[in-house]
C-alpha cells in the first residue's frame, strides 16, 4: 500500500513539476489559449492570428518575470 501511495505521489509530483513548476504563468497561458481556441471554434483568420499572438504575449510576460534583477539597495 505504501509503495502505491509513494508511486502515486511521485507521479503527481512529476506532473505538477512539469505543468506548473516555477512558471505557473505558462500553465495559465496554456489554459487560456485552449479556452480561446474553443471560443474561436470555426473562426479561420481570427484564430490563426489570435492564438499565436496570445502565446507570444504570455511568453513575454513569463520572460519578463524571469529576468535577472539588480539587488535592492
Amino acid at each position, binding site marked *: 500500500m505504501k509503495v502505491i501511495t509513494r508511486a502515486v505521489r511521485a507521479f503527481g509530483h512529476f506532473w505538477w513539476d512539469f505543468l506548473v513548476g516555477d512558471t505557473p504563468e505558462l500553465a495559465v497561458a496554456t489554459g487560456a489559449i485552449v479556452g480561446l*481556441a*474553443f471560443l474561436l*471554434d*470555426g473562426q479561420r483568420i481570427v484564430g490563426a492570428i489570435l492564438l499565436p499572438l496570445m502565446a507570444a504575449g504570455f511568453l513575454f510576460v*513569463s520572460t519578463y518575470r524571469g529576468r535577472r534583477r539588480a539587488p535592492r539597495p
Partner: protein
Amino acid sequence: MHASSTLILVVAVFAASLVEMVEALTIVVAAGVSRGWRPALEGAAAALLVLGVLVLVVGVPLIRYIPLDALRVVVGALLLVLGLSWLRKAILRASGHKDPHDEDKIFAATVAELGAEDASAGAAAMSVSAQSPAGTPAQSKKHDGVGFAVAFKGVFLEGTEVVLIVVSLGAAQHRLGLAALAALAAAVLVAVVGLLVARQLSEVPENTIKTVVGVMLTSFGVFWVGEGAGVHWPGSDLAIPVLVGFFVVVFFAFTAFMRTQLPAPATEKATS
C-alpha cells in the same frame, strides 16, 4: 499529412532528443570515469530500454483509443507548456538573464559527488574488511550499484521529456514509429560522438538547439490546440512552417528587447 509537418516533426524530436541525450551522456561519462564503464553503460542501456517501453505503453493506446481531436488538444497543450518553457529559458540565456547550460560544470559536479561517495564507501569498507575478509566483494558490488544507479537516473530523467515529446508529436500525427526512430537516431548519434570525443560535450551548441526545439514545440502546440478545438488554419498543415517563422521572429525580438531595454545586472547569478 503534409511533408513539411512530417519534416518538422522529425527535426523537433531529433533535436529535443539530441539535447537531452547530451545532458544524459555527461552524467553517464562521469559515472563511467568515476565508477567504471560497465555499470555506467548497463545503467544507461537499462534506462533507454525502460524509456522505449514507456513510449509503447503510453503511445500505442493513445493512438488507438483516444479520438484524434481530443488527443490533439491535450497533446497541443502539453507541447505548449513544454515549448513555451524551453523558449523562455532560451530567451533568458540569449539575453544574459540566465547562465548558459554548462556540461563541464555538470561533469565536474557529478565526478566530485561520486568521488565523495567513493571515499566514504572506501572508509566503510576498510572498517569492514578489518573485521572480515569478506568485505571486499561487498564493496565492489556497491560500486557497481552506485555507477548503475547514477547512469540509469541520468538517462531516465533526461529521457522522460523526450518520451513526452515523442509520444505527443507521434500520437497527434499518428507517426509514433517515425518519432521514436528520430529520437533513437539522436541517442545513437550522441552515444557514438560521445565515445569518440569522450567528454568534449560542452562544444555542442545546446542553447541554440534548445531554441530550435522550443520554437517547434510551441508552433506545434498552438497549431494542434487550434486544430483540435475546431479552428481552421488557412493553408491547413502549411500553417505550421508559418507559425515556426513567427516564433523565430518572436524569439529574436524578445531577446533583443531584453538585451537592450532590460539588460541583466552583471554581478547577479542566474535565477531559476
